[in-house]
């Protein structure tokens, strides 16, 4: 599950323990039906609570090294930043370099 931070608008991920992290690697991944249901419940709760903006669930996979990779190009772009300005967004700090479009 990802959202945008209320103050800065940057992409954040829902991590174990219910905190929000700027790192994709911290994202909690639902791997079973029951976990998916609990993640959806957490999404609804986050939306109601309003500490972040527009929480959404998105499918992810893992690469050969076991690192998380968003399945859809939209989430890949969110994980990196604008593909036309590689000096901006998480990619500028070397974040998620294993994700490619």
């Amino acid at each position, binding site marked *: 599950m990802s959202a*945008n931070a*209320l*103050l*800065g*608008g*940057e*992409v954040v991920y829902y991590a174990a323990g219910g905190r929000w992290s700027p790192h994709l690697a911290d994202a909690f991944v639902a791997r079973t039906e029951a976990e998916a249901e609990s993640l959806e419940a957490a999404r609804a709760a986050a*939306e109601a609570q*309003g500490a972040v*903006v*527009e929480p959404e669930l998105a499918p992810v996979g893992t690469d050969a090294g076991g690192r998380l990779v968003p*399945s*859809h*190009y*939209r989430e890949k*772009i*969110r994980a990196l*930043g*604008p*593909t*036309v*300005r590689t000096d*901006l*967004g998480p990619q500028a700090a070397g974040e998620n370099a294993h994700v490619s479009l």
Partner: protein
Amino acid sequence: MYRYDEFDAAVVRDRVAQFREQVQRRLDGSLTEEEFTPLRLMNGLYLQLHAYMLRIAVPYGTLVSRQLRQLAMIADKYDRGYGHFTTRQNLQLNWPKLAEVPDLLDDLADVEMHCIQTSGNCIRNVTADHFAGVAADEVEDPRPTAELIRQWSTLHPEFSFLPRKFKIAVTGAARDRAAVAVHDIGLRLVRNDDGEIGYKVLVGGGLGRTPMIGKIIRDFLPKDELLAYLEAIMRVYNLEGRRDNKYKARIKILVHEIGTDAFIARVEAEYAKLDGASVNADPAELARIAAYFAPPEYESLPAVSEGFEAAKARDPDFARFAATNLFPHKVPGYTAITVSVKPIGAPPGDATSDQMRALADLAELYSADELRITHVQNVVLPHVKLDDVHALWSALVEAGLETPNAGLITDIIACPGMDYCKLATARSIPIAQAIATRFADAERQALIGELGIKISGCINACGHHHVGAIGILGLDKAGVENYQITLGGDPGEQASLGQRLGPGIDAEAVPEAIERIVDTYLDVRAGAAETFIETVRRVGLDPFKPALQPREAQLEAA
């Protein structure tokens, strides 16, 4: 240039103070996101993929130097040192922080600017011909009309909760450079047989998922009746426009569903009931507004500048720039210059704060302190002496703003697309970059001539793809970016919507397909004077269809 009176200034400051309080209440939890969203949108603040985005209104695209300098300062202080000029002649910042936006708005108010009605279901920033007031083919400057509509529509209580957003454009020239036929209301200033000036009124044009060309509902509306007539249109729309389905809520759907004649009958009936005198601006107020747009003090100059001609003969790069980026001015010895914000390979319409400051300095030095933002995402310096063009061009070279491509194939309109926009289904900017790079050769561009490519990253059509001579629409096809190509769109006085050339293609295939479309045009055009759009109108789409097939299939067919 219109200057705020004390009421304008107070309205804007009050709104900033109100928004400051609203942000505070969102941050302390007393407003939910659901409650806050419409409030921030009313102040032009969106949430996009990576950050908030702020849309700053540039009424009818006109700016003075100190405003552009302030925008540059704001881009540095609150954002990442650049901004994006949009197809509504506005400026968007891509990285503002919510808590800082109220301060940003105060800094904007210092130069009589704001973000009011740049979003939401209200009357949006009124756009106009970017050569307003200087075009040789003009009946009258459209900006006093646009300013009148701005004043009338700003915070208009009856029209603040329309079924959907509402866009108005005005042109005063024979050649339509403001795309008025694809607006909810388009106004053309015209002269009747008695020599009086009035408006031809078009309603129900628009792009988006259901593109339509506006219908003429009045051939000649006397100038002093404008506001009452607009009010009649808005009332019919406000009452009868659909609110049950946001995709059918624009006025174009209403006009289409009930038919133009029935729509005209309703507007005229409403108009007959209105007390026009209580709505229309009185002549003194019209004159007061018009006075702000009086032309600068022009010098009396010969129509031909010897210095300019000599510089062209001396310097081929300058000659190329002069051939493409100059526009005929109605005053002898002057020209209007299009500064392309489309350097080859850069995101269309993105300007750095340094470039903004350079443009502000050049406007102050050479263009009576004035600039225009165009809906084609470029900047115009409207009042330049031919004698000064070479010096100005040299300064543009320094700032990296001398690209000689105005109106040519690399002068591409592109929305931000999925690199920034939450609604996008595919990226637009990389497609524009790839096409511009492919056609970088200035000589080849000149050979191809006038050709507008317009790219949208989703069906909402912010990149105006429906009215591109070549239109490109980016979609998501089973998790892969896919692009549909249309030909034959025209935003001008012969407005037409592009027709789909064939099935969508992958991103990598787009530049090659455009290349083949252009090659076909060069093959079949009836001489160099026939533009791309004229050729498409003459020969239809069939000769262009093989362009979408893979190269091998083409060779076999040959």
